[in-house]
């Protein structure tokens, strides 16, 4: 993914930044410029708690370009506790650990890398809720 595409999304990717409508209170993930409910613009910055649960998941064995380093990886649709859903990888899990409804939390991780000189993308993945940092 090109530098401008990664750079302009940095706040969303790095700290789950969304947007909240100052007028009607609707929240959005990822952040956007205009409220679809009441047409208000601009919207306020809104930080999500980082907690959510798994809606559905898969283990990917044939990845797109830039995702070859760890196969298979767990990819899931996650519902944030504030409501919005997103697609992200789930890390720090083995195949039998993952289930629908499982609580997860935000984890800052390397997402993809494009060859020796390409961009290394960092951003959000999710891990089991309460996963101990530096456990090993």
């Amino acid at each position, binding site marked *: 993914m090109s530098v401008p595409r990664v750079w302009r999304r940095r706040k969303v990717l790095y700290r789950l930044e969304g947007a909240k409508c100052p007028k009607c209170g609707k929240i959005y993930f990822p952040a956007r410029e205009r409220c679809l409910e009441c047409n208000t613009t601009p919207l306020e910055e809104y930080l999500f708690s980082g907690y959510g649960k798994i*809606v559905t998941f898969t283990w990917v*064995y044939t990845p797109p370009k830039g995702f070859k380093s760890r196969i298979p990886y767990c*990819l899931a649709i996650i519902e944030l506790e504030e409501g919005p859903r997103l697609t992200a990888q789930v890390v720090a899990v083995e195949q039998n650990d993952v289930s629908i409804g499982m609580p997860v939390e935000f984890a800052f991780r390397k997402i993809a890398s494009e060859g020796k000189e390409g961009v290394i993308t960092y951003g959000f993945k999710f891990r089991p809720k309460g996963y101990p940092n530096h456990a090993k």
Partner: protein
Amino acid sequence: MKKIAMVGVGNTKVGEWYERDLRDLTDEAIAKALSSTNIDPKEIGATFVGSMSSGLFNQQEHLSALIGPYSGVKAPALRVESACASGGNAFRVAMMALHAGYCDTALVVGVEKMTDLIDISDVTTALGTAADGEWELGAGATFPALFALMMRAHMHKYGSTLEEFASIAVKNHHNGALNPDAQFQRPISMETVMNSRVIADPLRLFDCSPISDGAAAVILTREDLAKKYTDDPIYVTGSGAGTDVIALHNRKEITTLESVRKATETAFKMAKIQPKDVGLVEVHDCFTIAEAVALEDMGFCKKGQGGKISLEGETALNSTISVNPSGGLKAKGHPVGATGIYQTIEIFHQLRNEAGKRQVTNNKIGVTQNIGGSGATCVVNVFSRGD
């Protein structure tokens, strides 16, 4: 509203055409379509090209200019893109032009040449652009992964099984073995599907449609001109389309495609038909789960039963409803932008009793269902004979 008539069709066999390029594949399809009627190429008023991603697959855009003139058709041309529904939407745009009176006859061509890319991850990435590039593909999603997410949610919600989904692949390969234009012409067993390697769990290799090359062309005209070009035109009696948000995670439900419901409702209402009136349907089985969900959301069975009715034989050739008599995307192959046109050509042959060993006997009304992406776009058309 006056009906639109399909008067000529032509297509290549679907396969891996390493020795032929995109324009020669389309030339074969166009030449066959033209010669299947007594039309002069100069009579074509407009050309519509459906192609998903020639830019990524072949480093070639501007197909509207590349294709028609190469085959001797210099009518004003336009390319239509809506991922895997590019063919279906090119067909719809041609109908709109005919209805609006901008032309009297239209050539619609669908084409995709996918085997120019050697690295499979390049193909996966190109196809992935039909999803949300930044928020799905950017997280490591692939098309098999998105449909796997849908499949696991379906299994969780409705108790559907791997065996039910595998039976869809077995049924479509059975039909494909009867279709000389299919990419795969060998029947397969349940064990073959269930024991094939995992692509994106729970999807196995044999749950997935292949990477394919193919081109397909149809000639459309107004109802009142149809008999000039053929004795046996096939009419479009209903047409509908639906659009939903592009990302699967933003849909109201993971296992229901609102675009399919909307497109079907519109098309069936226009054609004044119910699901029970339909004898055969070509649905977009890019993955086995996609056929199950299509049958459910089109109203051919209850929600959650799309795989079960396949396992019980209800959707086999000449059973309750013949689903994917061509072999579907699964066995006939899936040259993405051409698929919508291949589907209409199958209905054309079936309704004219020209389908050989896979001929469906209940062939008064045929339907096509073509989706783009993980179902954000859907086109449904209803066809019938003139009599």
